[in-house]
């Protein structure tokens, strides 16, 4: 059976790639403000958690985590991960058209390779078929257990 994705699931993959790239960019910006963290000053990592850019970056990454977990519940890890790499392409385009940065030939080549890589998996099945085993029982049991007190 070939697993294909509904438009809603493609939207979740889009959320995975956007929140990851934006979150990383915000974290990077925040850490340049915090300054160097050395083995002797590991406490600076806690100071970093009070930086607004780092906090916003963490919130974005929480959004990433929620959409990432949802995607992993119906697709293979090796299907979801290349999709997240597409976020690098988004960042490159944001850098060019928003920050007016110059994109070198190397970067255009990198973008092309990532697009090709994502295209390879996007056309294939999203989930490996496994023979029925305990996993099915586990999921039914856990889903059922969650259902006993989880209606909110």
């Amino acid at each position, binding site marked *: 059976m070939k697993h294909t994705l509904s438009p809603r699931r493609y939207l979740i993959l889009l959320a995975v790639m956007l929140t990851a790239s934006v979150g990383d960019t915000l*974290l990077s910006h925040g850490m340049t403000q915090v300054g160097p963290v050395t083995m002797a000053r590991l406490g600076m990592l806690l100071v970093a958690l009070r930086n607004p850019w780092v906090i916003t970056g963490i919130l974005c990454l929480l959004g990433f985590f929620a959409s990432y977990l949802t995607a992993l519940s119906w697709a293979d890890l090796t299907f979801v991960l290349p999709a997240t790499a597409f976020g690098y392409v988004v960042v490159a385009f944001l850098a060019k058209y928003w920050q007016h940065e110059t994109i070198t030939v190397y970067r255009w080549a990198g973008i092309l390779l990532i697009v090709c890589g994502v295209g390879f998996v996007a056309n294939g099945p999203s989930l490996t078929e496994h023979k029925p085993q305990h996993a099915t029982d586990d999921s039914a049991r856990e889903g059922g257990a969650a259902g006993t007190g989880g209606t909110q």
Partner: protein
Amino acid sequence: MIDAGHIYAGTLETWATILTVAATAVAGDVLTAGAMRRIGDLDLIRAKSGLGGAIRAVISSPMFLLGVLSMAVSFFSLLFTLSNVELSLAAPASASLTFMGNAFAAKIFLKENVNRRRWLAALFVCAGVFLLSK
């Protein structure tokens, strides 16, 4: 004056921190993916038990919690690395290593069908991420 010993130690420390980020990220990804596989389709669980039920199903999985712990270690390693190593090296290098590591780990531990198409995707993305840092 630049000391060759310090340069070597610096390079070694740089790659050790990048490798730590990648290794813990792979462990986190594989553990959470394994946990999500055991739990089942979150869309179905949410439709049946609501958002609270879906969250409960996820956070009651020990494998998921172990994966989150690995991801937390990876996150703090990344913060540590970013404060010492240039973003243009640290981000693509750790991301590329994580992509390839995940392809191997998914095949070995998750028994995913990593066919030629997926290997090519991992290689293309890996090379593409490196070119982006140029």
